[in-house]
Structure formats: C-alpha cells, structure tokens
C-alpha cells in the first residue's frame, strides 16, 4: 500500500490516522448490527443503499475530484449487471466468474467512453456521457437475442450461501467497505492529487507537463471499474436486469445521490444514497407523486445546498484541516 510521506507525528493505520480508523470501525460495526434491528425488507433497502452508494462514489471520483460530472455511469453500472445475469442465466457460469466478467465489461465500456470523453469538460462532458449512455441503452433495448430486449433477463444469480437478506447484506457490506477504502486510497494517492489539480486548473497542469488526457482516461476507467462492482452486486440483489437498469434515469439518480451527499466528499455518497432511498420509501407510502418530490429535491439542493449534506456539515465552523 502506498502511503504519502506524512510528516505528521501521529501513527497511521493503513493510511488512516488513529482517529479516522476508529470512526471507520465504528461505522462498519454499526452497519453490521443493522440486520438485528431492521425487518427483512429494510435490510434489503440498506443493501440497496450500499450498492448505490458505491455507484455514487464512483461518479464522485470524476465529479468531485476531476471536476467532470458524468451522466453515463448508470449505463456502465448496468452493463455489468447485464453481463453478470447473462453469464449466470444463459451461460451457466458460477457466481464468482460471472461477477468478474461483469466488472471487466464495465471497465471496458468505461475505457471506451473515456477515449471519447477526455477531450471535453463541463456541460459538453455531461452531454457526451449522456449520449454514450443512451447508445448503450439503445443496444440493450434492441439487441433482443442477447439482452432479452424489453423483457430483460431473469436468473438465479445470488450464490446459494447468500440467499437470506442478512447474509447478502453482510457480504455487500464487506464489499462496500473494501471498495470504499480502495477508492479513498485512490483519490488520496499522488494520482488522485493530479486529478484534483486538473479539476482546479487544467491549463496549469498542462503547462506543468502533465498528460491531462491520459490522467483523465485512467481516472474514468478506474471509476468505471467501481461502478461495475456496484452493478455486479446489483445483479445478485435483484436476480433480474432490464433496460431500465442502464437507462438515463439510473445515471441521474447516481448523480443526485452524489450531490445530495456532497460532491468531492466520497463517503457522502452513502449518505446521499441513504437519503434518497429513505425519501423514496417514505414518500411512496403516502403519495404517487414521488417524481415531483424528487424533482423538487433536485431544485432545492441546487439552489440551497449544492455542496450536499456532508458539505453543509463540513461548513459548520469547526476548522478541520482536510
């Protein structure tokens, strides 16, 4: 594990300070304890929070740290889901192999997206990733032989060991913890610092001799890898995939979760995912107008809290050196 040469005197544990490691341990332990207080259905929801949290985190790598928000990550996520379900249901592969294939497929798609997208930024980047996502969606919708078209593909993807709600939840929790840690290390590495430099001033980085397109390409591909992990987990959660999994709405929801939690906060993604999923469940119990509520939430966040929940919390004057 590469650690930045810290001049600080406090001991570091796997790259984290003692205090941070303790908080991380408490959070994970608390999360692991949830199945004992929640109903099965709620454990399912918590599992979804974890899975979509990973997706939102992957979007944050680019959005928060490279300054490029993508509306195509839902498609990358969904490609992994499709490959995992197909591999299990049609090709009869064991879960681990299917999982690996799914992640690989997502990474590949991300690399292709990246090749086309690295030269753009801002709104154009957004629109390009949107367009690419739509192409993927169109293919999944029309390539009926392979993807089942409108019907999607059904399968028994979840490994027999993890059939119960709690067992699967713990497996996902373990995966999420590992993946979150990996992403955290990634953005704090020198590579991650370069990405942040690009976000802050691309021209300066270029004049300093950094190969900006290459860095963006790698960053995008890595972010796609993690989105693929989330997608593969989702395949096991649902045992089902359909074109709506790769649709624009999926990308939009991922971006919203990232923003709600806080762009550039990385872990805020889980907070954002929890907030949106909880909101959806509460609202749908009382009204069908969930879409209106979602839209209003979007609007309010953009106007009043674009830095998200964690961002707002951070702004509370406790001067923390990041």
């Amino acid at each position: 594990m590469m650690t930045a040469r810290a001049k600080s005197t406090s001991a570091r544990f796997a790259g984290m300070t003692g205090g941070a490691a303790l908080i991380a341990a408490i959070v994970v332990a608390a999360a692991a304890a949830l199945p004992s207080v929640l109903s099965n259905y709620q454990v399912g929801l918590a599992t979804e929070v974890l899975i979509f949290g990973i997706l939102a985190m992957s979007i944050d790598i680019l959005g928060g740290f490279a300054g490029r928000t993508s509306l195509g990550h839902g498609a990358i996520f969904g490609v992994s889901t499709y490959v995992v379900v197909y591999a299990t249901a049609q090709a009869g592969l064991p879960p681990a192999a299917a999982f690996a294939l799914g992640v690989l497929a997502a990474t590949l798609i991300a690399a292709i997206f990246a090749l086309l997208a690295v030269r753009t930024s801002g709104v154009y980047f957004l629109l390009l990733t949107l367009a690419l996502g739509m192409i993927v969606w169109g293919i999944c919708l029309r390539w009926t032989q392979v993807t089942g078209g409108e019907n999607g593909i059904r399968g028994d993807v979840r490994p027999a060991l993890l059939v119960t709600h709690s067992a699967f939840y713990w497996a996902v929790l373990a995966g999420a913890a590992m993946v979150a840690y990996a992403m955290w290390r990634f953005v704090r590495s020198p590579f991650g610092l370069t990405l942040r430099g690009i976000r802050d001033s691309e021209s300066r980085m270029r004049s300093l001799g950094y190969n900006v397109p290459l860095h963006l390409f790698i960053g995008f591909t890595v972010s796609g890898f993690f989105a693929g992990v989330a997608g593969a987990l989702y395949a096991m959660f649902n045992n089902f995939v359909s074109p709506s999994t790769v649709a624009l709405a999926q990308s939009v929801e991922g971006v919203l979760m990232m923003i709600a939690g806080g762009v550039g906060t990385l872990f805020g993604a889980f907070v954002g995912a929890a907030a949106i999923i909880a909101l959806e469940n509460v609202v749908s119990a009382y009204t069908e107008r969930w879409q209106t509520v979602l839209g209003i939430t979007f609007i309010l966040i953009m106007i009043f809290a674009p830095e998200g929940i964690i961002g707002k919390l951070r702004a509370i004057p406790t001067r923390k050196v990041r």
Partner: protein
Amino acid sequence: MDRRRFLKTTTAALTAAGVGAAPWRRALAQAGPIKIGLLAPLTGVVASGGKEMVEGVQFYLDQVKNEMGGRKVELVIEDDASNPDTALQKARRLVEQGNCHMLIGNLLANTGLAVANYVKGTATPYFIPIIAADDLTQRQRIKNVIRVAGYSASAFTHPLGDWALKQGYKKIATVSQDYTFGHEQCGGLAQVFTEGGGEVVQQFWHPLNTADFSPYLGQLADLKVDAIFTMETGADATRFIQQYSAFGLKAKTPLLAAMNGTDQSVIRTLGEECEGIISPAHFAEGSDNPVTQKFVRDYEAKYGKIPSLYGFSMYSGMMWIDAALKKMGGKVEDREAFIDTVLKTELDGSPLGKSVKLDAYGNPIYDVYIRKVVKRADGKFWNVPTTSYPSVSQFWKYDPESYMKQPPYSRTFQGIKKA
C-alpha cells in the same frame, strides 16, 4: 465504548420484543383483513391503462362493500411506473413490508415476468388478469401465478387467422411492437394463417413508443396485401390508427388489430379513423348479452366512460378470487389450498355473461368474438361482435404437449409454415 454498549443493549432489547411479539401477532391474523397488493402502472407510458385497472378493482370492491370471503379487504396500491425494475421493487415492498396475502395486477408483460420471477421464490399467489405472456401458463408455468380472467397472447389471434382465411384473404402483412406480447400475437395469427395456405408477406417490428409510423406506413403502402394486422398498445395504438388513416391506407386495405388496439382506452379519444377495424377478443362492450350490457351501463354511470379491457379484466379477476375465497371461508393464509381452489373454481356471473373455467394449465377458456368497431347512437365508438368461436383453448386446435414442443413465439419463430 459507551456507544458500543448502548448499541448492544438496544439491539438485544428490540430483538426480544420482536421475537416475543410474533406468535401473538399470528393468532390475530386469522380474523384480520385480507391484504391484496395491487400493482399497476400509474405513471409512465401505459399510465392510462393502469388507472383503469385500479378502477376495475375498486368497482368490484364497491359492489361487494369491500368484503370478500367473509372478511374485510385491505387494498394496497403500488405504482410500477411501466418499468420492470420498479415493479420488482414494489412487489418486494408489498410482500415483505406490506405482508400482502396475494398480489394482483401489472400490465406490461415485462413487468409481469419480473414479478413472477420474484414470487416464484416467495410462493405468494400472484394473479395476472392482464399479463398475457404465453409461457407463464405454458412452458414456464409457475404454480402460484394464475391467470384469472386473463388471456394468453396468441389465444385470440389463432381464431383470427382462421377467420382471415374464411374471408378469402391470401396475403397479409403485420406491424407490431417489438416485444414478447407482439411476437406472440403475430405468431398466433401467422401460424394458423399460413398453415391454412395463406402468406405472410412481410413483418414489421418497431420499439414501444414509436411516435412516427410514417417509415413503416410508407413500406406498407407499397405492399400488395389483402389485409394488415397490427399489434399496438397504448399511445402507439392511437398514433398508428390515426396515421394509418392520415396516409390514406385505411381506404385501401382492411385493418385487423389485436384487441389492445381497439380497446376503449384507445378508441375513446379517436374519431372515424377507428371505424370498421376488426379485432378478436373474449369481451365486446357492444355485445347484446344482458349481463355485459348491465356491466357496461353501471360502469359508464360510475366512471363516465365505457369500460376498457383493463377495467373489465381486473373486475372479473377480483370476482374470480372472491368466488374461490367464498368456497374456502376466507382462509387465504392457507396458500396451497387457496391456489388449488382458484384453479378449480368456475366463474359464474362475470360480465361475459357465461361461465368460464381454467384449463389444466391455469389459463381460462373463452368464447372468442371477432369484433368490429362501430359507432353507436350517441356517437361513441365501441366493439360489436360479428361472429364467435366457442371454447377456444390457449393451444387452439393443437395438442398441448406437441404445441409446447415448438419454441415459444419470438421474432425469429412466428410459426410460419413454408409453402
């Protein structure tokens, strides 16, 4: 430290409370309400059909004063947004959080298939009056998925193929939405029609939500056919019928349609474009059968519109479930017995005006009308039967076992017999 101990004690306390409560709760359940989970597309592309599904269910519950099998009924409605992922999520919520005794509904075949896959694992009874995917009562039969008051897609187009031959049609073309429901309806027609010596000149498939049919109409106009069959649902049906007329094809070539295309939910907002279209179905709102007439009158009085397939099917589905529940004294918790009773129940008094029963595969056997869209006295359009085919099986005249050996209808397999 404190935080961890706090967590441990609260966890223990809550678990104890949960465990303790369970047997007490179960004892109370016997006398409690029957919880029915209704899944319908209230938003999205087939939102209008979904609304009518809810109306059909509520119309029935109003008539029986919200009581079925001697117990109160609690209806929980969830929106599937015309989307299989959402349907799955809501089904999960209804079963796991809502503790529904049964699920009913869904409109689009893909949403139904997603939910069916889920209930396969939970053994929850799932009733599908609208979902017409053939295989759910054929090759991929799931015991607890029952098609009360519903139909399988190809069941009505088989007789239509026969009717077309009798009209002397030799060549037809088909235009259809490109998904299972469309494949199956076209396949049913194509198989019977070609086995009788007819020819299917060309088949067009388009994605759901095609706004502009002009590219297809252009090609259709050039074909020399005796009739054109169209399989469209929802907004696609409205647009197709309008554009078919606007491009002058209506004057040239007779249009045969799947019943969804001439359903009230579509022709209600149309004018003369829909007049004269032929479609096969078990239900014809213009039929002069007195029971049907009464149903249509009452429905129109209550909701201000002539009932569509969606309203009618859900109503009859509920009626069927109620008939089974009455036989069982309302003991819906005994799932095995409940499902078996439903399968054996014959439905009397449905708006069809004749009794209906399920075949050995859980699919109803109907008389199929070949209907025509006609303008009634007050200017509204409705479907009136012209001929009828009695007791049509989902397997038509084929032997079930050998029929199921042929692959299910799909884009690549349409049952077409090479001349």
